């Protein structure tokens, strides 16, 4: 597609349930990023993929969070046993080259997650 696509756009879930968030990057972009945007917390980097590989998973907030990317394209961010503090907007971005300092990231519109 023309841009980064994220689904669902909104997700409401009950505490303790698992959720999956999907990101479809711009075609041909090898690098993919997940961020979390919480009220009053700004934008928090979660994880980065180069191809299907995530070199550093230390940005994930807890072991309830996991992410995968298959075929060098679509990525899913999974949150297990959701907690209320997981409520946030989850943003995905992609770029054509992994050198962050020199490259532009293109962002999706995000998934707004609400945990009741």
């Amino acid at each position: 597609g023309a841009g980064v696509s994220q689904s669902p756009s909104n997700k409401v879930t009950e505490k303790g349930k698992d959720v999956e968030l999907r990101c479809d990057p711009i075609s041909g972009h090898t690098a993919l990023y997940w961020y979390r945007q919480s009220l009053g917390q700004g934008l928090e980097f979660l994880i980065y993929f180069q191809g299907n590989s995530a070199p550093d998973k230390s940005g994930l907030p807890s072991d309830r969070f996991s992410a995968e990317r298959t075929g060098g394209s679509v990525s899913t961010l999974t949150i297990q046993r959701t907690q209320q503090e997981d409520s946030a907007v989850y943003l995905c971005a992609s770029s054509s080259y992994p050198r962050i300092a020199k490259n532009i990231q293109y962002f999706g519109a995000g998934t707004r997650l609400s945990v009741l």
Partner: protein
Amino acid sequence: AQSVTQLDSHVSVSEGTPVLLRCNYSSSYSPSLFWYVQHPNKGLQLLLKYTSAATLVKGINGFEAEFKKSETSFHLTKPSAHMSDAAEYFCVVSEDPGGGADGLTFGKGTHLIIQP
């Protein structure tokens, strides 16, 4: 280590007057700097970027920013505000000692309000 500070959480200006959004950064390496804009319920959009070329950078929608190494600043300006400029603005710093996604840091954002 790198960090970025957006000095104002909210800025309010009248339509047709100049806009100044302030950003200071710290970086151990020669940084790249970006400004992104986020309109309500929309994804992040790149306004402009500085990557060690000209210190005065022109972006989209009439915005520009000047990299001042001596002041470690990268303030965003626009000569005349338009109602459509109302949004959240993020200053982003990236240092690239060897590549890798942990080189990207977002400021907490500045909410720009345009008064009619």
